[in-house]
């Protein structure tokens, strides 16, 4: 096996420009940030209070009562008072800690939703060329995982870094206050502890990376074997395949062992530090006690404090990686947000009103390529008079679908013009244009909602009666009424429960309800039962009546009902005429007809 490329290249953990841009998303939630900070400070303070109370108790009433300086009642009431304060601290700490956790999470989640929506919205607005170049999987990763990494940076990273720093400072401050000499002795351990934690973090990160790489290799191999099992068995490779996986499994084990090793030394190392700190405390502390500079209560307080300081130090070293991957993710996200691959909209678009709009389409010497000079359409010219119908036929890859894409302005032509009512379509608003033209695609697009909503496509100005009337006119009402809930039946999983024919009828109803001047239809190739077929043909005739129709036709009956047939072949219009004329010609159309490849 050769090297497997590493997916994650991590760079800086702090990039001022990126951070500044990220903070823009936090600004709307300034209030929450403030609240979280206050909670944090309160918690950091409350966490240290109990040890002060213990010290007060030990050095105060307990010592006094032992030396019989106070009476039993005084002792008990003082002890109870301290315990009551302790109880209050626990209670307030409980509430504040919960509130803090909730606030931080809510803040992070809200910001994440905002960024996620913004990225998704941006991607939606980008042109189809962007989608052609970027695999769907990569885009999904941006919207899901990269945004998640930002959230981690926000709710765990930034907030927690602040919190940990506060904790460390507070502990050190308290220790200095009690006995600065002893505190300085103890502080000598701090940088050492931090260095060890950082080293562990780096080692562990490398270890995790190795593990991830080996896991990916094992999984890829298992997956490949499952899909290619027949080949393995036919070529009698079972034994070697098993041996190969055992080899990879061993590698994975070794990678795991690497991380186990790091953890196995790190946790004992932390314990060793604690022991060292305790020994120092006992040995050095004893000297201060002898000089009466340290009480037994203070000694105890010291002991408690040093047991607390490890956690924030360990956390801090962890945040470095979180920030690193967040920086990398935000860079990728901002790259998408900064893209401007849009199908341009004119500044002052021509109005596209239903009145006075005739629906005449004309292609004028259109050349089009998805990439470079690989022409998919070469010098295509034709004119569809208002109200006439044209059937486009040709083998797969002849360029029929591209014509539809161009009329809807999913792409712009490289040469030539497309005219709608004599005006270049570039001059209209593209959304207006797309809404004016009804397109029925092969794979019918159904969205979550009920049947009626799917017919009206979210346009509330279409009255319910008209939608139902349209469904009736295209013979869709029969199956709809049989659905559980009729027109209000929910469409599940993008219509997976409906048959191809039913979806087609639904799409027809949608097109009719919109009553467009221009109809573009990509007829379904999949086989449909004869009964539905008859329904569809009837619906189609009704749909085409009085509209400019451009139909990629696969059924002879459809083709025959059109005024004119255009035969596409290798990106050019090669023949044109009626069915009878073309058959007589004995050219491409004739052969397609014989092959039943129409």
């Amino acid at each position, binding site marked *: 096996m*050769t090297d497997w490329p590493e997916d994650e290249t991590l760079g800086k953990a702090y990039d001022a420009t990126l951070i500044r841009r990220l903070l823009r998303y936090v600004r709307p939630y300034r209030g929450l940030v403030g609240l979280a900070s206050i909670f944090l400070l309160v918690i950091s303070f409350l966490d240290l209070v109990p040890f002060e109370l213990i010290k007060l108790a030990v050095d105060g009433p307990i010592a006094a009562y032992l030396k019989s300086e106070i009476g039993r009642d005084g002792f008990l009431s003082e002890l109870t008072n301290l315990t009551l304060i302790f109880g209050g601290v*626990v209670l307030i700490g409980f509430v504040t800690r919960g509130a803090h956790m909730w606030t931080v999470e809510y803040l992070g989640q809200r910001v994440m939703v905002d960024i996620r*929506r913004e990225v998704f919205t941006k991607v939606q607005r980008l042109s*189809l060329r962007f989608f052609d170049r970027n695999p769907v999987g990569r885009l999904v990763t941006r919207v899901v995982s990269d945004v998640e990494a930002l959230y981690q940076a926000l709710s765990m990273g930034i907030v927690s870094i602040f919190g940990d720093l506060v904790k460390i400072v507070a502990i050190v401050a308290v220790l200095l206050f009690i006995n600065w000499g002893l505190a300085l002795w103890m502080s000598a351990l701090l940088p050492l502890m931090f260095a060890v934690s950082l080293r562990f973090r780096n080692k562990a990160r490398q270890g995790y990376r190795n593990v991830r790489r080996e896991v990916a290799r094992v999984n890829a191999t298992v997956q490949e*074997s499952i899909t290619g099992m027949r080949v393995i068995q036919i070529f*009698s490779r079972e034994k070697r395949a098993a041996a190969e996986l055992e080899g990879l499994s061993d590698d994975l*084990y070794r990678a795991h062992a690497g991380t186990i090793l790091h953890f196995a*030394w790190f946790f004992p190392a932390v314990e060793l530090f604690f022991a060292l700190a*305790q020994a*120092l405390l006992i040995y050095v502390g004893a000297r201060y006690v002898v000089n009466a500079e340290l009480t037994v209560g203070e000694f105890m307080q010291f002991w408690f404090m040093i047991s607390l300081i490890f956690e924030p130090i360990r956390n801090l070293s962890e945040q470095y990686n979180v920030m690193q991957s967040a920086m990398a993710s935000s860079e990728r996200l901002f790259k998408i947000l900064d893209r401007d691959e849009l199908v341009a909209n004119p500044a002052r678009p021509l109005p596209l009103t239903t009145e006075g709009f005739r629906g005449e389409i004309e292609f004028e010497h259109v050349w089009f390529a998805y990439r470079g000079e690989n022409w998919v359409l070469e010098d295509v010219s034709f004119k569809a008079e208002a109200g006439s119908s044209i059937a486009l036929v040709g083998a797969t890859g002849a360029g029929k679908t591209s014509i539809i894409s161009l009329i809807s302005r999913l792409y712009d032509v490289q040469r030539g013009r497309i005219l709608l009512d004599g005006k270049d379509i570039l001059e209209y608003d593209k959304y207006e244009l797309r809404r004016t033209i009804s397109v029925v695609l092969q794979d019918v697009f159904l969205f979550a909602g009920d049947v009626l909503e799917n017919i009206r496509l979210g346009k509330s100005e279409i009255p319910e009666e008209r939608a139902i009337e349209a469904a009736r006119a295209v013979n869709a009402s029969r199956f709809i009424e049989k659905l559980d809930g009729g027109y209000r039946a929910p469409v599940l999983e993008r219509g997976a429960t409906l048959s191809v024919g039913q979806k087609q009828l639904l799409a027809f109803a949608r097109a009719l309800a919109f009553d467009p001047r221009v109809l573009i239809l990509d007829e379904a190739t999949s086989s449909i039962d004869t009964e539905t077929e008859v329904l569809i043909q009837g619906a189609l005739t009704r749909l085409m009546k009085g509209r400019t129709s451009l139909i990629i036709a696969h059924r002879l009956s459809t083709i025959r009902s059109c005024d004119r047939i255009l035969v596409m072949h290798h990106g050019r219009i090669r023949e044109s005429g009626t069915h009878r004329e073309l058959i007589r010609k004995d050219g491409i159309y004739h052969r397609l007809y014989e092959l039943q490849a129409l």
Partner: protein
Amino acid sequence: MKRFRTILAFVPRYKRTIIFGFLCLMGSRGIALYLPQILRRAVNEIDRGENLDLSVMGEAALAIIVLSVFLAMFHFGMRWFLITTSRKLERDLRNRIYSHLLTLTSSFFHHRATGDLMSRASSDVEQVRQALGPGVMYISNTIFMVPIALVLMLGMSAPLTLFSLIPLLGIAVLTKLLAPRMHVHSKRVQEAAADLSTRAQESFAGARVVKVFAREENEIEEFGKVAGGYLDASMGMARLRAVLRPSLQALEGIGSLVLLLVGGRYVGEAELTIGDLLAFFAYQRMLIWPMIAVGWVIALFQRGAAAMALIDEILAVGPDVRDPDDPIEEGPIRGEIEFRDLTFAYNGSPVLENISVKVPAGTSLAIVGHTGSGKSTLVELLLHMYPVPSGAVFIDGVDLNRYALRHLRGAIGYVPQETVLFSNTLRANITFGLDHATEEEVVAAAARSRLSADLEDLPKGFDTMLGERGVNLSGGQKQRAALARAIIRNPPILILDDSFSSVDTGTEEEILRELREVMRERTTILISHRVSTVQNADRIIVLEEGRIVEAGSHAELLGLGGNYAEMERLQRLEDELESLK
């Protein structure tokens, strides 16, 4: 534990390591429990104030350091021995699942999603390991520590021990109650995240449709809702965490509070020393994690057992094709094939009916027919991919069922319809069915498959990595590589199952011409849609719904004027259309 039988079977191999691990565990926990006793003595000394004996303190400090060094060593050993063993068990279990999968036949893989099998071999194995590795380690830790700590605490003060146990039990109960709910919430978050991915995936994949219908705004709104759903799920989890963590912290606080109130009183009344009190604090803190572990480990075990059951279910399936008990002696196979009144049904529905055809060694048979007519099944039976009825398929006059699988399959070069190449070098893919291959053999096989010219486009020639993380070959290149993989084995029987669908007609003819040379001495079975591919075969059969409807040579079949003749006519039309440029 009985439910983990399958994986526990691997345990004896690692007996010594595991014993060492547990000895280290006891050693490290034992020292950890002893350390507070030193602290206790030191504090009692400190309590004497200015009169304290410095040498006692020095000894205590030294003892702590020395003991801690041992503690660290034992702790290291505990983690190293126990956790690496759990990883070894995981590895063994995964290998076992994988080698089991390798014995299973097509009928098994047909109705099982690859994703499901993948989770058996990855996430389910991991769940089992978590139960047996960290799970066992932490619960052993608890079982070992709690009694000893109790004894030590009881030795100092029985009533105070009872008081300090109350919050600890609270911690155990709380985690036991909330750990399953935590799991439910984290599942919910995972599902919401999956929804998010699906939604984005659908929307981006359908970008074209979305734009045609000017549905961008609705998509954005819909996605916003799903993103909101993810927020809700995450906040559900956060709420639970915002209760759990502070509660644990509060219980710990209450523990200290009780020690202060009750213990402080005992100290004041001289029933307890101040050192005892600090030791109590130390023990209570030491026991918090073992208490949390109780609830947590129970959940781990439940999940591990469920995963183990799923794995066992797979391991219980046996192959439906295996080597015969007394296979015929392995020797060279000439390649005579005969189907004798073969009828085959799959899942109750008939696929092939009354197939009788004989292919003498060294001749070629072509099979044509529509999709689903049974062509591929016929050759798959020859490869013994499904159970074959006895007395129906013969090779060199011997019933197929009497051949060892390796013997039989070793004699057949098979080029499947769907080309499967592996993410490895081109060389490794070509020599896939051989243990050893010389450079000359690889070069010759590539040349015969018309792959030599393509090699120039590959950055490292035969050593170029293919697949996802390497070069992606075109459909035609893949098919030719698969052909090279089959013919390098020099098999007496060659099966080409529609193997040139992505190869252009010119190249296909070249390959066939070359093959005719190679296959003169061998038996060939060709499946194809193209007349040009099959016309030169010695014999052609036409399959329809699992039956032979026409049989004969190209000329004979054309003369019949049936399905084959119609197919030939359409083919000609297509070629004409293609030539119209």
